[in-house]
């Protein structure tokens, strides 16, 4: 089977992915005060990318052949797409949603840095425990739950940094620490996967080869199960961490761009002594 043919045919129109996307769109539309603008375009492209990640050959590769493909999908669903979705929510709408009686309270709680950090980094760790991962690969329902949980925990994880409501955000330096520690969490996991012996995830060792591309992967691309696992671990590790790094750069940039709230009110002109250095001791 040629590569082009594979790319053309390995699409799987999973109904649940479409339903999930529609549900997200519906809840977006139901947000009080949301209207179409640049932000909703960002949200829409997030949804589009999500559906793409779930139905494209990437998903097929990740489920049947390559741990590394799974990991690319994972990074997209957990780190990239939630960021786009979150940035697409208008501030007013989020404010109103947070004011809702019960749902708002739950959202506020989840948006605290500690639960958000634990959910974001936890979903990375828990779903990659080898035994669980293997179970997921065999169980369709669990697989769906996994993919959906990536997106949801991703949104929760980003909330303390990029919440549409400014009051929900951490202070810039605290946000940098939040991101750096999350980066550490994903570094350790990536490191363990990368440097563990091959065969951590047995499902990828001898794939059933439903599309007949295994020999192409193994012989032409030279991706053995060991290399595949390394690439997967490193994908979580390096690009994953670069996303956290870029995010902390954005928080710092935002900080510098905002007006200083903590300026001490000192009347100008006072202490205007011509020669600097001589004024302290009069």
């Amino acid at each position, binding site marked *: 089977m040629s590569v082009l043919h594979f790319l053309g045919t390995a699409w799987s129109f999973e109904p649940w992915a479409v339903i999930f996307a529609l549900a997200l769109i519906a809840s977006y539309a139901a947000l009080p005060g949301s209207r179409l603008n640049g932000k909703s375009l960002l949200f829409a492209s997030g949804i589009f990318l999500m559906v793409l990640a779930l139905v494209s050959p990437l998903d097929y590769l990740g489920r049947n052949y390559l741990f590394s493909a799974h990991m690319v999908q994972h990074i997209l669903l957990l780190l990239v797409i939630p960021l786009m979705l979150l940035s697409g929510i208008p501030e007013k709408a989020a404010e109103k949603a947070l004011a809702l009686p019960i749902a708002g309270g739950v959202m506020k709680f989840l948006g605290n840095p500690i639960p958000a950090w634990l959910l974001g980094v936890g979903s990375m760790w828990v779903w990659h425990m080898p035994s669980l991962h293997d179970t997921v690969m065999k169980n369709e329902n669990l697989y769906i739950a996994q993919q959906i949980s990536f997106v949801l925990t991703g949104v929760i994880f980003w909330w303390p940094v990029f919440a549409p409501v400014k009051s929900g955000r951490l202070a810039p330096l605290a946000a940098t620490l939040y991101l750096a520690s999350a980066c*550490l969490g994903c570094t350790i996991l990536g490191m363990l996967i990368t440097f563990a012996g091959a065969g951590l995830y047995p499902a990828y060792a001898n794939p059933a080869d439903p599309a007949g591309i295994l020999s192409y992967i193994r012989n032409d691309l030279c991706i053995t199960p060991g290399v595949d696992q390394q690439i997967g671990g490193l994908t979580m590790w390096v690009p994953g961490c*670069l996303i956290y790094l870029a995010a902390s750069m954005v928080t710092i*940039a935002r900080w510098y761009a905002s007006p200083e709230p903590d300026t*001490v009110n000192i*009347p*100008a002109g006072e202490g205007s002594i011509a*020669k600097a250095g001589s004024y302290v001791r009069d």
Partner: protein
Amino acid sequence: MSSRIPLVPENAVPLPSLKANNGLLSWVSSIDHKQIGIMYLIITLIYFLLGGLEALLIRVQLAHPGNDFLTPELYNQLFTMHGTTMIFFVVMPFLIGVGVYLLPLMIGARDMAFPRLNALSFWLFFFGGILLYYSFFTQSGAPDVGWFAYAPLSEKPFSLNKGPTYWALGLLASGIGSVASGLNNVVTILTMRTPGMTMRRIPLFVWMMLVTSLLLVFVIPIITAAFAMMLLDSILGATFFTPAHGGSAILWQHFFWGFGHPEVYILILPAFGIISEVIPVFSRKPIYGYEFVAASTVAIGLLSLGVWAHHMFAVGLGNAANAYFSLASMLIAIPTGVKVLNWVATMWGGRINFATPMLFGTAFIIEFVVGGLTGVAIASVPIDWVVTDSYFIVAHFHYAIFGGSVFAIFAGVYYWFPKFTGRMLSETLGKWHFWLTVIGFNMTFFIQHFLGVMGMPRRTYTYYDMPYWGSMNLISTIGAMILGLSVLIFVWNILVSLRHGRPAGDNPWNAWTLEWATTSPPAVENFELVPPVRGRRPLWDLAHPDMPDEPGAKTV
């Protein structure tokens, strides 16, 4: 209504009495950050001379092929001690010492947040160094396993002497001291700033010390744990790093470089900070792109944590791992480049006074760029396969650490010496020092790039008599002698100027940060009154009330 803000910020700790005793005891028992800072500087100067002497002995041995000036054993001890000394007992403590002296002054505080902890850090460093050097006087001699002490060479049965144990113990002690000063710096910077000195206004040196200190806090424990494991191996017979008993030789490398690479940034970031202070003052312009210089520091700090395995491209980690680490390492070039270009842009359009600090500052840019560019080159895996463990690497990191950190240190010493002592260093001797340093340094190390790619391995007490190798090494050795001479001039300059230097006054360079707003040297309590801080350059604002720096620095 006075604009002057009382010295002690509301949240400041009531300080223990700073009343000094007289004589030596006043130093030993001191908890004043300035005295502790000065002690750091004096001790690192002594270690600098020791490390330099070791370097000269190494270069004499290598002056021609087949030389038997030193025995292989002594040679190995010398290069191990040279590397360890220069990194852990010269550059790092010097920068910490300058930080300890200047941080409270620059942010308008009376002392560090924890003065006693500050003294503890210094004494841990001091006795760590003594412990390391004591090994020279033991029967087994100094450690001879390289500053990286790769296992299993550093362990039984390949190192039966106690050298590596002294090494690990000495560095363990001084490492704990470094964590303590990292903690102290972070808390000081975050909580002791005078009103108006917001995080967006702190001098760039303080910014870089903040990132460096965070690195100290998070990175030194990596090597502390590794030292603990190594000591357990050598004392209790544990088997962490002994492959013969189920341990792993590669694990030590991961741990060592997991610390060792960020350590490189611990050595260079405060140097960047010094340069970011010196260049604006002597160019008479504010730093160009303050935000970018500060933010790129954070980026470097974070990136530095994830690139250690580029020291291990020849270990055989697999090409996937190598490629990723290669990419991550190359990315560090970007924030570093941003810094360099901002310094150049700061000088552009200035009215530059090329006094000695600025000479070193300017030379720093060029020398560091050479080291930085070769650094990008060797981040590329195949190039690393060619040059790693050869003299090319020796040249590379000396351009980064000597051409970078040490040039910045010299700039900093000439810049702040008046503040530390109340007297100026001699400009004439300074210029001699500068030119001999530039000539000697480049002569020593530039040629080593060629030796490396021609096939000369590092850490060898002798080498093949191949075409040109002897003469190239001889040139390098002569350069090292010139460098040694320049250091003697530097020391002479310090000794002479301490007694006979021109009195400096409070602000001889007409600089803008708060340390220049008090006497030279500052009184025990630093300031009587701290000037109002309305921008990044408080003393500029005072001198130019008509033209204040906007808060949050506007961009033109």
